[in-house]
Each structure stands twice: as structure tokens, then as C-alpha cells.
């Protein structure tokens, strides 16, 4: 059974009914339990659970300390290319947009890598736009080969691949995959991805599982918050995570909670308020406490500072979302970031909160 079958099982689910029936006693019971069921998870993401955020926060913090200690691991993205064949309505790299398209050549990859490595970062996330033509697997593999002496851990965030392609990249030195479904609601998915290969909802949905089958070390999934009803989206995200972690217990799993940001030409976005955002983050931490939770620089520095205490254990730092953004400032950014702090700024902030910034948490063998 693939995740799609499980997802389908919940596609006509009466969320409103489940959400309406939640009280303080439920929340107190759930946070006193060791095992939190899917049903409990639904209660935690209900609007009716909002008055009990403090209770949830205390539980989430305790679970995070137990699983990850007082430590936050840092990573940074490196954009290799912004060529794209898709027309995602929320993204600056949309093929219709007239932006300067760029793909780093080998020398530029090395140079960009050197600049990032000088900051002490050891965990790198390499990204491309979704174009197999401009950035085939061969190109990504070459980039990994060029970068692996500089970084202990290399994760990819690219278009979805077939299992044999993930295998090639894992053999080249990739240990992590980040892939967001963007939006789990199938109808909405078709709307916001009007054309291009990305319209294939199921192929994208199966991508994390394809990488798990090839024994990748870590998989990070997420939903772009703002494209559809966030409570339902977070439920499907949690369900997806639960499904993968049960079926592939040897893969380290993590969640990202990217809030949709303004991007060039994006006309579609629902603002998600901080309270809802925090509630959903806490619910995920309590439902699947062994999952890492990533927070990117989409969030501002002061908000990220607070989140350190609520259950996040991975953060990006020293970020540019433009291709070659560390070599020069010429490229177009994929989206606006809100924390422009340097790696040292972020390290200092983590220390000020009584946590340890971890620069290396992997060994390539």
C-alpha cells in the first residue's frame, strides 16, 4: 500500500466534526499519555485546542529535550540553478517569469561551496528549480562530487526522482532528501500547478518513499502553509510522516513548516498567523516526538528565537535563496527571507537561549 491509499481514506473525512469536540480535559489527557494516536493528533490541531497552547508547549519542550537535548543543528541551502519547467503560482522561479536564469558551472559551485564552508557550516542543502533538462541527475551528481569534501552532510531539494536515480545520488554522497508536497489537497494541487511535470501529484507524493526504499539516511517533508486549509494540511503531513516512519524505521525523519512568503508574481497566499503556526508545530512535536523539526529563515529572527524552546531542532543560517547568492548578489531570489543573520549571528542567538548550536552531526562513511 502506498501513502496515496491511506491519504484517500481520509480525503472525505469530516474534520469539522472531529475538531468541534475538544475540551481542556482532552488536551490534559493527551499530554499525559506516552503514545499519542491519530485521533489525539486531530484534537491537538483543532481550533478548540488553542486556549491550551501553554500546556502543549510545555509538553513539546520536554519531548524535544528528551530526544534532541539542548541542541540545534545548523544547515544552509545552496541554489545551483533556477531554470524551471513549471508554473507554480506561488514561486518566483515560475517558467513564465522573466527573471535572470542561471545555472552554476563547476567553478562557481566550488567557489560558492568554499564561501559557505568558511562559515563553519557542515550540513548543506543543494537546490535546483524543477528542470530535468537544465539540471539533469548527472549535473546534480557532479555537484555532489564537487562539494562532498567541503561538507559532511549533503541533502537535496530538487524535482522528484525515480528510486534508481535516488540511488545514484546516494552513492555519490547524498544522505538527505527534502521534498515538500506543497499542498496535499489534490484539487488545490492541480490549481496551483497549472502546467509542467509537477502536475503529477502522485509521483511527487511517492518521492520520499522512493528515497526511503534506497536507504537514504534522512527525509524531510513539508507542506507549503498558505496554499490550503492549514489544519487539514498539517494532518496530512503528520499522516505522511507517520506512514513513512512506520514503514521505514531506519530513516531519520523530519518536518519543515514553510509558511508561504511573498514571491515575484505570487497572487495566491493566505497569511498564517503566529498562533496557528505555533499550535500546529506543537501538535506535530507531540504526535511524532522523534521527528526533527526544521525552521528556515522564512521566519524572522525574533520568532525563531522563541521557537527554539518549543521543539525545533534544526535551523538554516546564513541564507541566500538566489543562485550563486554567496558569490555575488546578481540572481533573483526564490522567495524573500526574514532572517538575514549571518551564521555567527544565529549561533549566538541559539547560545543566548541556552542551547548549543551544532555545526556537525553526521559522518560520511
Amino acid at each position: 500500500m502506498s501513502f496515496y491509499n491511506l491519504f484517500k481514506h481520509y480525503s472525505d473525512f469530516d474534520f469539522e466534526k472531529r475538531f468541534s469536540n475538544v475540551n481542556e480535559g482532552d488536551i490534559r489527557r493527551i499530554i499525559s499519555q506516552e503514545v499519542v494516536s491519530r485521533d489525539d493528533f486531530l484534537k491537538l490541531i483543532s481550533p478548540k485546542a488553542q486556549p491550551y497552547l501553554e500546556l502543549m508547549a510545555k509538553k513539546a519542550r520536554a519531548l524535544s529535550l528528551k530526544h534532541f537535548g539542548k541542541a540545534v543543528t545548523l544547515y544552509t541551502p545552496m541554489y545551483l540553478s533556477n531554470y524551471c519547467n513549471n508554473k507554480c503560482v506561488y514561486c518566483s522561479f515560475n517558467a513564465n517569469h522573466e527573471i535572470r536564469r542561471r545555472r552554476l558551472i563547476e567553478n562557481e559551485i566550488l567557489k560558492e561551496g568554499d564561501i559557505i564552508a568558511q562559515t563553519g557550516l557542515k550540513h548543506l542543502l543543494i537546490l535546483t528549480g524543477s528542470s530535468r533538462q537544465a539540471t539533469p541527475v548527472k549535473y546534480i551528481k557532479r555537484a555532489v562530487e564537487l562539494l562532498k569534501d567541503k561538507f559532511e552532510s549533503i541533502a537535496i531539494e530538487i524535482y522528484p526522482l525515480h528510486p534508481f536515480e535516488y540511488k545514484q545520488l546516494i552513492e555519490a554522497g547524498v544522505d538527505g532528501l527534502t521534498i515538500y508536497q506543497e499542498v496535499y489537497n489534490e484539487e488545490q494541487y492541480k490549481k496551483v500547478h497549472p502546467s509542467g511535470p509537477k502536475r503529477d501529484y502522485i509521483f511527487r507524493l511517492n518521492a520520499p518513499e522512493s528515497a526511503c526504499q534506497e536507504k537514504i539516511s534522512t527525509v524531510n517533508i513539508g507542506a507549503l502553509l498558505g496554499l490550503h486549509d492549514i489544519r487539514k494540511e498539517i494532518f496530512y503531513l503528520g499522516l505522511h510522516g507517520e506512514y513513512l516512519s512506520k514503514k521505514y524505521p531506519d530513516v531519520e525523519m523530519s518536518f519543515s513548516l514553510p509558511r508561504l512568503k511573498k514571491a515575484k508574481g505570487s497572487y495566491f497566499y493566505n497569511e498564517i498567523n503566529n498562533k496557528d503556526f505555533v499550535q500546529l508545530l506543537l501538535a506535530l512535536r507531540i504526535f511524532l516526538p522523534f521527528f526533527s523539526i526544521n525552521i528556515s529563515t522564512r521566519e524572522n529572527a525574533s520568532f525563531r528565537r522563541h521557537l527554539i524552546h518549543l521543539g525545533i531542532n534544526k535551523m538554516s543560517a546564513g541564507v541566500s535563496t538566489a543562485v550563486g547568492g554567496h558569490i555575488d548578489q546578481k540572481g533573483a531570489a526564490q522567495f524573500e527571507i526574514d532572517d538575514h543573520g549571518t551564521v555567527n549571528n544565529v549561533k549566538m542567538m541559539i547560545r543566548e537561549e541556552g542551547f548549543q548550536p551544532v555545526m556537525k552531526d553526521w559522518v560520511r562513511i
Partner: protein
Amino acid sequence: MNKDLIIGGKKIKNRLLTGTGKYADKKIIEKVIDASNCEVVTMALRRVDFDKTNENILDYIPKSCTLLPNTSGARTADEAVRIARLSRAADCGNWVKIEVISDMKYLLPDNEETIKATKILADEGFVVLPYMNPDLYTARKLVEAGAATVMPLGAPIGTNKGLKTEEMIKIIIEEIDIPVIVDAGIGKPSDACKAMELGADAVLVNTAIATSDDPVKMAKAFDLAVKAGRIAYESKLGEMSNQAVASSPLTNFLNEAL
């Protein structure tokens, strides 16, 4: 009964071993080791940065300590072996704590793979301390594979639940002749003390110290508890009885002329 703890030919006076993970600040590690007089300190090789770009965890472990690099992150015997070799090549000594874990939810060790890795590394001259699920057959196979100690878990790592596997650990202590170090799950000094009273040769405690509000004080508390437990074990605890001693013994008649 009063035998010294000897691992890999080295006499270890302090029976509390500790780790370096989960701390808010690496600087605390040095103070913790100082307060608890720990001699053996484990650290994940995946956290060791051999470049000069970042502060290195090794700089915070006093030179007098014996390093016990662990293979955290290994999912198979093969991966554990490769991490151990990297560790030795990087001058971290020839001790290794084998952790082979392929369940990220409970982080329980895979005994079968652990035995395989132990055999390979012991043959290569490593002093091997394997972390294991407390199972007598596995413990025997580890001894046969050349392990220097066995390290059965008291409870799943990080849970602070104490000696949930007490009965299995008792059997291993009774049957296995190499040192038995209870690792993982020990949440309170009283848990550590209990493990020592049972006859464990040592305990390894990390989470309970690292995530307490005052790790330095907590390390001291564990040091004292381990010492107390060991002294109690060496002095033989009085037998515990559930019944009062019968006032009219049943076998007294044997001494009487019938």
C-alpha cells in the same frame, strides 16, 4: 567481589562513565567530568569536527580521560565498522562503543548487527564496548566475538525510566564474566545506585546529567550514587525477605529427641 574494573587492559577507578551529547554548552562538559571524576567519556564521531573551522568537542574532554568514540548514526554492522576505523584513523584511540540502530523511534540497538561489528573490530584490535538489548544469548555471543564489556540498556535511551530491564540485566551479570556496564535509561542517581547494588561493574549516564538544570551538580550526585551502590554490593546487601521469620520454626523438631 572487590575486583577492579579493567577494560582493555586499563584499570578504571571511577565506575561512572559519561557522554557529551545533549548539552546546552560544550564548556559544561569539562566541568561535569571534573565534578564527577569520570575517566571514560563517550562522544559521537558524527559530532566530532576535525577541521579547524569550528570548536571541537575533543577540546572539552580532559586529556586524562579515555575517549570512547561511539558509532551513533550506524544502521548496519558495516557502517559501524567504517565509523570505528575513521575514528581510529583520526587519532581518537582504539576504544569504540558500538551503536547499531535502525529504529529511529525507540533507538533500540540491533543485537545481530552489533555482534557482527564486534567480531570484525575486536579482530582488528579495537577495545569494543557494544551497546545491546539485554539478552543473554547476545551477551554470550559478544563475549565470544571478543567484546571488552557488554553494555545492556536499562530502558530505551533518553527515556530516564530507570532499570526497566532489571531481571534480564541480573541474569547477564550472573552469567557473563566480562564487565557489565548498564547504559541508557538511567534517569536518577537512585537508578544508578541500584544497578551498582545489583553488581553491574559500571554505568554510563548522559541524558540525565546533560538535560538537568544543573549538570555539574547532577554529575556529582551520580558519582556519589555509583560509589554508594558499589560499596553496598561489595559489602553484600542483607537478604530481603517478604515474610516475617516464623516464631515457631518448622524444622525445630529435628533437634529434639522424639
